[in-house]
C-alpha cells in the first residue's frame, strides 16, 4: 500500500463520522503508545516533547494552535487581537476572557486566579521552570474579575501569544500547586505526577517512564466528550515496535512518531490494521557552516569572530557545497514520506515560506565545480582536492550520533568529494553534542569543526524569536559561556536591522515579508544549508476516528474528539 492509498483510506474513514456523536465514555478504552515514556505529567518541569504531549491530555492552555497553525480558543472565550480590542494599541496589554462555567476535574471552578498563579508558578526564582521563556517580558497579570485576565508586558509585543498559549504553557490549578512554587517545585511529586486539569482526561495512575492510566474527566466542558471512558498511554521500546503494535498486531490505537525506514512501514501497512498520518511543521535538518576558524592553534580565540574561517569565508565555496547536494535523494533515504526537500531554514507556516531559493532543489555538481574553478580553487597537484593560496578544501564535518545522520554524512562526503572537497566525518553522542556544557569541546555551540548537521525548529507559528537566532550577538563565544544559537557566527548589520524591525512590527503581512527577507539573506549567504523539512509521522488504528495530526501543538491536542469507528 502506498502512502497515497493510506491517505485515501483516511479520507474514506471520515465518511464514518456519524458514529462520533455518542455520549461520554461510550467507546470504552483507547491505547496510545509513545516509544519514549513520559517521566512526569508537568510540562513546566521537563520541556521534553513526550511530557508536553502526555500532559496535554490533562492540562489545557487558554488557546492553542490547530492543525493549520491558527490559534483557536480553548479555555478562553475568543482569541484577543488588536481588531477585537483584546490587545491594546501599544501592543503592551492582552486581555483574555475565560469561558463561563469551566471546572477543574475535581469539580471546583476555574478562575482568573488560576491563570495568574500559573504565571507566578513558572516565573518564581529557584524552580527551574522549563517554559519560563513563554512568560518573558510579562510584568504583571491582573485579574479584575473571575473571568478576566489582563497580561501586561514590559515591552510592545507584536505577537502576544506566548503566555498561556500552546501545549508548552497550560494552566495549572492554584489550589493544588500553591505550595509547589520556587524551590519546592521539584519536590511535589504527587502533584507533578497527577496534576488536576481541565482537559478531557484525568490521571488515575502514573508510573514514571512507563505508563499513564487515565479516565474521562467527569467535569469536562463538553458533556458528550471524550468518547473514551479510559485511556492508557504506554511508553518504552522503540519506534519500530510502537509502529508494529498499531499496524501489525493491533494492540494499540495510536503510536507517536513512528519514524521507521519507509520499506518496513510499507510491509506493516500491508496488514491492513492501521494507517499512517503525517504533517509538516518547522523542523529542518540543516548544515551549519562555520564562518570562524576552528583551528586548535588559536587557543582561546578558536572558533570566535576574531579569526574568519580560512576557506569557508569564501561565498563561492559555501555555495558550491550547497549545490553539490541532492536533497531529494537524502529525503528519500532518510525520511521517506515524513520528509520533503527544502531550500529554506524557515519552511512554514505557508505565509513565511520563501520561493526565492528553490533552485537548490536540483543537484548541480558541474555548476558547483565551475563556481569553485572561477573563484580560483583548482586542483593543481592532482590529488583530487582543490586548493588556493596553499589552503586545501578540506573540511571536518560533525553531527550527533544517529543512524540517519551518519548515512547523510557519508553520502554528502561522497558528493563533496566529486567537486574536489575533502571531508573528514565525526559523530558525537547526542547527550554531549546538544548538552551545552561549556567545558566540553564537542558541543554544537562550540563548533570546533568546519560544518555541522542537526535539526531545529520553533514552538508555535511565530518565527520572530527563531529568526533572531542569527543576530550577531547570538554567536556562542567565551563571553557568553559558549551559549547562543548563532552557530555559523553569522554577523550582518543589515540582518540585525531586520530583526529589530520585526520586533516592533505588528502587521502580519509585513512580519512575513521581514521573516522571508531574513530567511533569504541566510540562504543566499549560504551560512546555513537546509536539507530536509522533517515532518511528523504517526500511526493510528483503522478503528480510531477523529485523529488530526498537528505539528504546531501537541499531537494529542484533540484527543477529546477521538472516537471508536464501529464496524
Amino acid at each position, binding site marked *: 500500500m502506498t502512502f497515497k492509498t493510506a491517505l485515501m483510506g483516511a479520507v474514506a474513514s471520515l465518511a464514518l463520522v456519524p458514529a462520533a456523536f455518542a455520549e461520554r465514555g461510550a467507546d470504552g478504552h483507547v491505547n496510545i*503508545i509513545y516509544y519514549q*515514556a513520559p*517521566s*512526569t505529567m508537568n510540562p513546566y518541569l*521537563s*520541556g*521534553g*516533547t513526550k511530557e508536553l504531549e502526555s500532559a496535554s491530555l490533562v492540562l489545557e492552555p487558554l488557546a492553542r494552535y490547530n492543525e493549520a497553525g491558527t490559534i483557536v480558543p480553548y479555555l478562553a472565550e475568543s482569541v484577543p487581537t488588536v481588531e477585537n480590542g483584546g490587545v491594546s494599541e501599544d501592543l503592551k496589554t492582552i486581555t483574555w476572557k475565560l469561558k463561563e462555567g469551566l471546572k477543574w476535574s475535581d469539580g471546583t471552578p476555574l478562575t482568573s486566579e488560576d491563570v495568574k498563579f500559573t504565571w507566578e508558578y513558572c516565573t518564581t526564582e*529557584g*524552580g*527551574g*521552570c*522549563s*517554559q*519560563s*521563556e513563554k512568560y518573558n517580558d510579562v510584568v504583571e497579570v491582573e485579574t479584575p474579575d473571575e473571568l478576566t485576565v489582563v497580561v501586561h508586558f514590559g515591552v510592545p509585543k507584536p505577537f502576544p501569544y506566548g503566555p498561556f498559549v500552546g501545549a508548552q504553557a497550560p494552566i495549572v490549578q492554584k489550589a493544588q500547586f500553591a505550595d509547589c512554587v520556587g*524551590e519546592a*517545585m*521539584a*519536590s511535589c*511529586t504527587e502533584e*507533578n*505526577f497527577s496534576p488536576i486539569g481541565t482537559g478531557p482526561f484525568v490521571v488515575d*495512575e502514573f*508510573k*514514571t*517512564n*512507563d*505508563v499513564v*492510566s487515565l479516565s474521562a474527566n467527569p467535569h469536562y466542558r463538553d458533556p458528550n466528550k471524550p468518547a473514551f471512558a479510559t485511556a*492508557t498511554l*504506554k*511508553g*518504552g*521500546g*522503540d519506534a519500530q*515496535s510502537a509502529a*508494529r*503494535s498499531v499496524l*501489525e*498486531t493491533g*494492540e*494499540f490505537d495510536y503510536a507517536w512518531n513512528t519514524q521507521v525506514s519507509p520499506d518496513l512501514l510499507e510491509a506493516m501497512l500491508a*496488514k491492513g490494521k492501521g494507517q499512517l498520518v503525517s504533517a509538516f511543521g518547522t523542523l529542518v535538518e540543516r548544515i551549519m557552516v562555520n564562518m570562524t576558524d576552528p583551528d586548535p592553534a588559536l587557543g582561546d580565540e578558536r572558533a570566535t569572530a576574531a579569526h574568519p574561517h580560512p576557506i569557508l569565508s569564501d561565498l563561492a565555496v559555501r555555495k558550491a557545497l550547497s549545490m553539490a547536494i541532492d536533497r531529494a535523494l537524502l529525503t528519500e533515504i532518510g525520511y521517506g514520506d515524513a520528509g520533503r526537500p527544502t531550500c529554506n531554514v524557515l519552511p512554514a507556516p505557508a505565509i513565511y515560506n520563501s520561493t526565492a531559493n528553490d533552485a537548490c532543489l536540483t543537484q548541480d555538481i558541474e555548476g558547483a565545480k565551475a563556481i569553485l574553478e572561477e573563484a580560483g580553487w583548482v586542483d593543481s597537484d592532482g590529488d583530487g582536492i582543490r586548493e588556493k593560496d596553499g589552503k586545501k578544501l578540506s573540511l571536518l564535518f560533525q553531527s550527533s550520533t544517529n543512524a540517519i545522520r551518519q548515512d547523510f554524512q557519508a553520502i554528502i562526503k561522497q558528493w563533496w568529494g566529486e567537486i574536489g572537497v575533502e571531508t573528514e566525518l565525526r559523530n558525537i553522542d*547526542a*547527550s*554531549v*553534542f*546538544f*548538552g*551545552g*556544557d561549556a567545558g*566540553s569541546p*564537542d558541543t554544537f555551540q562550540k563548533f570546533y569543526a568546519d560544518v555541522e548537521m542537526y535539526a*531545529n*525548529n*520553533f*514552538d508555535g507559528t511565530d518565527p520572530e524569536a527563531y529568526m533572531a537566532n542569527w543576530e550577531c550577538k547570538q554567536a556562542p563565544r567565551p563571553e557568553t559561556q559558549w*551559549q547562543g*544559537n548563532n552557530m555559523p557566527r553569522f554577523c550582518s548589520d543589515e540582518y540585525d536591522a531586520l530583526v529589530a524591525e520585526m520586533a516592533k512590527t505588528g502587521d502580519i503581512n509585513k512580519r512575513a515579508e521581514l521573516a522571508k527577507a531574513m530567511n533569504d539573506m541566510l540562504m543566499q549567504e549560504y551560512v546555513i544549508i537546509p536539507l530536509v523539512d522533517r515532518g511528523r509521522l504517526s500511526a493510528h488504528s483503522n478503528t480510531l476516528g477523529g485523529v488530526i495530526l498537528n505539528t504546531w501543538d501537541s499531537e494529542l491536542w484533540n484527543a477529546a474528539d477521538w472516537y471508536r469507528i464501529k464496524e
Partner: protein
Amino acid sequence: MLHFTIRRLILSVPTLLFISLVIFLLLDLAPGDPMASIPLTVPPEVKEKMREALGLGEPVHIRFLNWLYQFFVVEPQVAFDHIFGTDFSEGKQRIISFQSRSPVMSVVAERMPQTLWVVGLSYVFATLIAVPIGIFSAYRQYSWFDQLGTFISMVGFSIPTFFSGVLLIVVFSVILGWFPSIYDTTHTITDWGSFWFQVKQMAMPVFVLTLYNAAQVSRFMRASMLDNLNQDYVRTARAKGLSERVVVLVHVLRNSMIPVVTVIALGVPNIFGGAIITEQVFQVNGLGQMLISAIYASDAPMVQTLTFIFAVLIVLFNLIADILYGILDPRIRYD
C-alpha cells in the same frame, strides 16, 4: 563460619564506600548533560536555571556526601516510616531523579514487581531446567540427548535476545496473535482470567530469558559433572556396590555443584539489574529499562543509586556463594 561471615560483612563496608565513590566520580566525569534531551527551542538561560534547580551547581564533594547521607540515612528512614508508620524522615531530602523529579527509591519499588516476575521467574526456570539437563548430558555423554542439549544451549548462547525476542513477537504476536507483544505493567491479577492474561504476557519474555540463562548454567553443570565422573572416588563408590542413582545424584552431583553454585549465585544480582535488552524488546519496563533510560538521560542520581544497589548485591551474593561452598564441601573451612 559465623566469625567469617561477620568479618566479611565488616570488610565489605569500606569496599562498598570505595565503589560508591568510584561510581560517583565516573558519572561526574562522564560527558553528558541532563538537559541535552530537552528541545533546542528551550533557551540556554532557562536550561541553566533548570540545571541549578537540580543541584548541579554544588561542588563534587558536597554532592557526594549529600548522596551518601540520603542513601544511608534518609532512605532507610523512609523505608522504616513506611513499614512502622513513624515519621523520622519528615521533611528530609530524598534522592531525586533528574528525569521525573520523583524519589529514586519509589521508582525502584514501582519497577520491582515486573522485574521479579519476568526476570526472576525466568532465572528460577532456567536453573530448574538447566541442572537436570547438565547432569543427564554429562552422564550420557555424546548420546542423542547430549547432542540435542548441546545444540539448544549453543542456540541459547549465540542468539542474542534482541533477535530471539523479535522473532517470537513476529511469530506469536503478529502471525499467530497468541500473545501480546507489549507487556502491561498496570495489569493486576484478580481472577483466573486475569491470571491467564498475566501468564500470556509473560510467556515470551520469560521464554527468551530462560533459554539464555539455561544455556549458560547447563553448560557449566555438564562440564563440572564430566570432571567428577572420571574421578577415583566415583569408581570406589561403584565398587562399594552403590546404586547408579546414589553415585550420580549424591556423590558426583554434590562435588560438581561448587562451580555451578558460583555461577548461579553470582547471576542473582543480574535479576535485579534487569534484563536491559529483553525488557526493552517487550516493553516490560522493569529495572533494566529504567537503568538504560536513566543513562541516556544523564540522570546521575538514578544511575548512581541503581549501580550501587547492584554493587551491594554482588558483594552480598559473593559472600553467599562462599558460605555455600562450606556447606557443600566440609573440607572448606574458613575459620
